[in-house]
């Protein structure tokens, strides 16, 4: 059996960066560490090919925690498979007006009609793989392969709040106005981030999501 762990790198005196082959392995290792959290581990920050593990240096250290990560990675099921949705949350349905400024460009890039782009985007069941970039921004896997487009060559200085977008194989929704380089397909009024709500984010890692066309 081969380990999915490609390496463990030091990120200062309080964190390790575990490198994995792909997102599925990242999420599998994160799930394993969440189920049984090693002593001293503070936070787990998943990304496309890495898992950042922050720790309390008074409780654990670089060498010991590196060994623990290697053991946990070795113990993962051999087959990776798709991202495992969490059973903790209901599927979130996000109503979207498909009126994004990049919709016509995306149709041209993919050779689809605008109508077909909308159908391709509303068909899959997505899963929130990880969050980042801004409070409440989730990176959703499950995007139709034909819509796995690169970022725009010129990022926008201000993407409107609620914009639904694709880039780099992910779908995302901007929780508030911010700079951004993703291809904007549409917009939603869903309250993606509310500090006084528990939890504050709608797009929680592990949650399944569908996009539904609205007018």
């Amino acid at each position, binding site marked *: 059996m081969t380990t999915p762990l490609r390496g463990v790198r*030091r*990120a*200062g005196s309080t964190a390790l960066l575990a490198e994995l082959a792909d997102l599925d392995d990242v999420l599998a290792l994160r799930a394993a560490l969440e189920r049984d959290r090693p002593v001293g581990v503070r936070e787990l920050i998943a990304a496309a090919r890495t898992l*950042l593990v922050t720790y309390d*240096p008074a409780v654990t250290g670089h060498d010991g925690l590196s060994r623990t990560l290697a053991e946990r990675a070795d113990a993962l099921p051999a087959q990776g498979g798709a991202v495992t949705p969490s059973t903790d949350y209901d599927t979130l349905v996000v109503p979207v007006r498909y009126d994004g400024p990049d919709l016509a460009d995306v149709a041209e890039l993919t050779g689809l009609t605008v109508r077909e782009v909308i159908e391709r985007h509303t068909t899959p069941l997505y899963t929130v793989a990880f969050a980042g970039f801004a409070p409440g921004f989730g990176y959703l896997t499950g995007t139709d392969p034909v819509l796995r487009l690169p970022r725009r060559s010129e990022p926008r200085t201000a993407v409107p709040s609620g914009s639904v977008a694709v880039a780099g194989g992910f779908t995302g929704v901007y929780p508030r106005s911010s700079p951004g380089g993703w291809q904007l397909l549409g917009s939603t009024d869903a309250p993606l981030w509310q500090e006084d709500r528990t939890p504050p984010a709608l797009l929680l890692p592990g949650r399944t999501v569908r996009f539904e066309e609205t007018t």
Partner: protein
Amino acid sequence: MTHQNLLAVRELEVIAPGPLATVQDLGRPGWSHLGVSRSGAADAASLTLANRLVGNPEDAAGLEVTFGGLRARLRLRRPDGTPATGYLALTGAPCPATVNGRPAALDAPVPVSDGDELALGMPTSGLRTYLAVRGGLTPPPSLGSRATDLLSGTGPAPLHAGATLPVGEPAGPMPGVDHAPRSAPPAEFVLRVWLGPRDDWFEEASLRDFFGARWEATSKSNRVGIRLSGPALQRSRTGELPAEGMVRGALQVPPNGQPVLFLVDHPVTGGYPVIGVVHEDDLPLAGQIPPGAPIRFRPVGTPV
């Protein structure tokens, strides 16, 4: 007496905030997985000292005053409406400070009364001065913290003239400390750095430059990060790094080769390689680096 609480007043009224003043505590750990950094005082050691000097818990909220310039009035009245007294403490970047026009000591508890006006001048060294008020500042918390996070927009807004901040009740006795002398921030900042996690993305010569150069903090610096100016660091490989988790103290190098030192309000992920990470114990010092200051990095474990 139903009107008792109407007469009790404990608050800090901002007359002028100076260039930037924010409420800070020790931040909100545990939300990075939803895209929110810990935030909190950029020089946490100074905030905790200020709190200890006035008998507050170390994690009570105080003010982080950037470049001085704060003017504020304390309102302290008992439930029967009579004036009350209290204490404040100023730590961090040393600056001229007065209470009602009389010089106020730094790094020491300063007795104050209802109506007293505090005024801070420009720091003589360093960047951020901390104000703790006995009882702590108690604006409503967000996600368990009163820290202002300028990147995510979480926490109280930066202070403006006319803002009032509630002050809590003292939580414990005053300590028997008159003065806690500290060395002022230095003219040149030396920070210990762990190489990595992406030092292998850079040329050997650039790693030598990184430790050999005298970097300068530019004016394009804030609580998110300090933009440095110095020799352009050259990458040894091409291609894009998929975004990955970032820690405070990370030195991220964008394509122009000029590192950005991430401070307390840093983004939780970033897409440029991190050449090294400042040692955790040196982060409070990094929080005091003013624009224009020279900075040197040295590898962790080597003598000064």
